[in-house]
């Protein structure tokens, strides 16, 4: 089912020409501009594959190409990540056993030297941090190239319909989706070379310079050579263990936002949200705006973890928040039909007899994000486990440079926080990278200081104190 009206969003951009794709031979209506998984979901298809050992039904989970739950056979090619692959007219989509059969006679691929793009600063990731890094690196004098694995820029911003906090010069009061547009406009104004649908698959040291190897549209290898790299690869949804947690219908919060806000596909009819941090609270509100019933939010802690105002917004619309509650089990044959929750005592133990069922077809997990540090870990940056920042993060200095000279980090991949801090960190990292590449004048250090001051100010409240505790563990000069 597709959403038609929405108080904030307009879905024309992602509903281009109408095309037909085929699922197991059955024709399905889709629109150019959507991904395969979205089109299937809109047609009511939830199960994408069965797991080999235990024949468990599986469907979407993260919807951003990181968890490999949505793999299907497309036009005979196995293991295509349907959540980030765009539809094409006539596509044949089939469920694969998790172990597909290899197609027989094929010609071997021909060796080809991949094109090499040279720049001063390479930015990996086109979310708020990456875009700010690119903009400021370019302004500081660097030739910048930016890659993002999605078909559009904006990172998580493109799903955020709510207005941002912070100061007005930091886009407070502006909706996330609009901020994404504004930043993209700034990028394009500066003629920064953009590579969309391009995934970075490795980061290497090549002599004095850095090499980022990317794959575009899963078809083409492209090499990017630069003097400095800013990694702004964002974060990934966490998973929690509860019974039947892999049933189709158990989604990361981000996946639901992608379905609903980016592609205008109704995620389901009734939702249970696990987690009352900002993500869970905002998600509840967005679901309500899209006309989806939120049965409840369960939170294991005794209090609301996110901003109170986000909670107040949804409570007055009648959405209950059950603190000191956890999810025990998802039930359903091929997909979620019910969620069983229970109350916890002061020692986080389930209180027997408090189990209750919610009839829902979607369980949204908003239990936390963890930084996506794969590229940084692979190249050898030093990492450390810091729970205040969301998990494993890289050690870096106050200019966002990691333990490898010339490699910078910004945004959620440096530590889970907000878009405002991502943008400020992106600015710092971008200028830092331009300085590191030797193309920026030392005048630019003043801009870094300005951004550092703004970050300090932003983080000076109680929500920021947790982050500051975490930063103490990872910022070294």
């Amino acid at each position, binding site marked *: 089912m597709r959403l038609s009206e929405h108080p904030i969003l307009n879905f024309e951009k992602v509903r281009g020409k109408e095309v037909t794709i085929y699922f197991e031979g059955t024709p399905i209506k889709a629109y150019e501009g959507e991904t395969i998984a979205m089109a299937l979901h809109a047609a009511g298809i939830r199960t994408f594959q069965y797991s080999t050992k235990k024949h468990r039904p599986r469907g979407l989970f993260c919807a951003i190409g990181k968890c490999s739950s949505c793999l299907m056979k497309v036009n005979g090619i196995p293991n295509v990540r349907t959540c980030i692959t765009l539809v094409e007219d006539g596509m044949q989509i089939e469920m694969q056993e998790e172990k597909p059969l*290899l197609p027989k006679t*094929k010609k071997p691929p021909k060796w080809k030297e991949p094109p090499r793009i040279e720049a001063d600063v390479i930015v990996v990731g086109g979310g708020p941090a990456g875009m700010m890094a690119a903009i400021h690196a370019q302004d500081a004098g660097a030739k910048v190239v930016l890659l993002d694995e999605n078909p559009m820029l904006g990172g998580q911003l493109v799903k955020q319909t709510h207005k941002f906090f912070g100061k007005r010069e930091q886009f407070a009061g502006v909706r996330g989706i609009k901020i994404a547009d504004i930043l993209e406009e700034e990028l394009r104004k500066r003629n920064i070379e953009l590579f969309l649908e391009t995934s970075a698959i490795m980061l290497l040291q090549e002599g004095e310079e850095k090499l980022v190897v990317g794959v575009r549209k899963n078809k083409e290898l492209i090499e990017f050579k630069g003097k400095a790299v800013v990694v702004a690869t964002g974060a990934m949804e966490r998973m929690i263990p509860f019974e039947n947690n892999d049933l189709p219908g158990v989604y990361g919060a981000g996946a639901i936002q992608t379905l609903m806000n980016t592609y205008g596909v109704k995620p389901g009819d009734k939702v249970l949200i696990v987690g009352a941090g900002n993500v869970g609270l905002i998600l509840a509100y967005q679901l309500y705006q899209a006309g989806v019933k939120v049965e409840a939010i369960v939170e294991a802690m005794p209090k609301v973890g996110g901003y109170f105002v986000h909670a107040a917004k949804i409570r007055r619309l009648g959405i209950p928040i059950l603190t000191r509650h956890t999810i025990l089990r998802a039930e359903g044959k091929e997909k979620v039909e019910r969620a069983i929750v229970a109350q916890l005592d002061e020692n986080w133990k389930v209180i027997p007899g408090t189990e209750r069922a919610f009839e829902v077809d979607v369980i949204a997990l908003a239990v936390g994000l963890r930084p996506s540090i794969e590229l940084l870990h692979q190249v050898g940056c030093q990492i450390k486990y810091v729970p205040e920042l969301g998990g494993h993060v890289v050690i870096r200095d106050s200019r966002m440079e990691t333990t490898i000279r010339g490699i910078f980090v910004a945004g959620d991949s440096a530590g889970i926080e907000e878009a405002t801090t991502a943008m400020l960190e992106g600015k710092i990292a971008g200028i830092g990278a331009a300085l590191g590449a030797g193309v920026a004048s030392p005048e630019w250090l003043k801009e870094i200081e300005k951004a550092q001051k703004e970050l300090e100010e932003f983080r000076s409240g109680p929500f920021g104190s947790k982050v500051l505790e975490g930063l103490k563990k990872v910022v070294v000069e």
Partner: protein
Amino acid sequence: MNSDIVVIGGGITGIAIAHELAKRGEEVTVIEKRFIGSGSTFRCGTGIRQQFNDEANVQVMKRSVELWKKYSEEYGFSFKQTGYLFLLYNEEEVEQFRENISIQNRFGVPTKLITPEEAKEIVPLLDTSEIIAASWNPTDGKADPFHATTAFALHAQEMGARILEYTEVKDIIIADNEIKAVKTNNGVIKTGIVINATNAWSKLINAMIKLPIRIPIEPYRHQAIITQPIKKNAINPMVISFKYKDSYLTQTDHGGIIGGIGYEVGPTYNLTPSYGFLREVTTYLSKIIPSLRELLILRTWAGYYAKTPDSNPAIGKIEEINDYYIAAGFSGHGFMMGPAVGEMVADLITKGKASLPVEWYDPYRFERGELRQKALQMG
């Protein structure tokens, strides 16, 4: 702590030796720097073959395969005799292999030359357009290194062997050319018999006893890839192509295709896989099995070939120090030799001689300048 025998190194070699010694009622302790298998065993290509080009290795591997079969059934780990298929592209190669095959047949190893059509029946996905024949032994096979090594270790312990993980040997105490004890980071173990089964690190252990002879074993980095899992029976045997840079590939139990090529860097202890290797391995392997091009490569990793100049290990007793044995330098085929090496070394220790041709691996041959014929090796 006391132990009659101390084995340094908890890979397949050390574990197999300890397993065999424990079976014979000997008191043995294995000292492993990290966790068992963490050296080269857990990084290996999983292959087990009898197709060698010299009598000694053929006999040893024939015995090893017997032991692999016996223990895999008894202990319940996976060992599948899915065969080894060497692809041959010209008359010279075919001649070479005819000779190898006759040696193997002489010892009862049923290798034979087959036609490209027959090869294609065994592996339908093969591109046979360039091959003129293939060397096929259906009794060769592969095993899961994790479960196999763990099973041997568990049973060795049940039979009385002690395995000390996260224990690193710091020094070997010697007086009057007699081994007195082994000093580790967790204390001293009094012992009189030490076996160096540390493969890529054997130089370091040899230095501790001031080994008076040269046993050149150097670590070289080799790399491998694994793909996404695909349906079973896609590539059952281990397929080898010397033409395409000594490549090898097969399907693992869990469905992914594992493979590598003869891309070597070293001597070095660096285990970081490289971009160059990733592009080369996919190029060569997809020449052998073109449909590989669609498969997702999930990961690369690196491991050591602890190489000697003739690619044969050094196995034997060192006369100058009592009692010091070495079983190291397996040059890329240590996993498959494991059980037989266990028997050979246990024989040397308990009986003073072995029923298998252990002289071929004489540790003194390098000193004497008597290198053996280079052992057949790929990847």
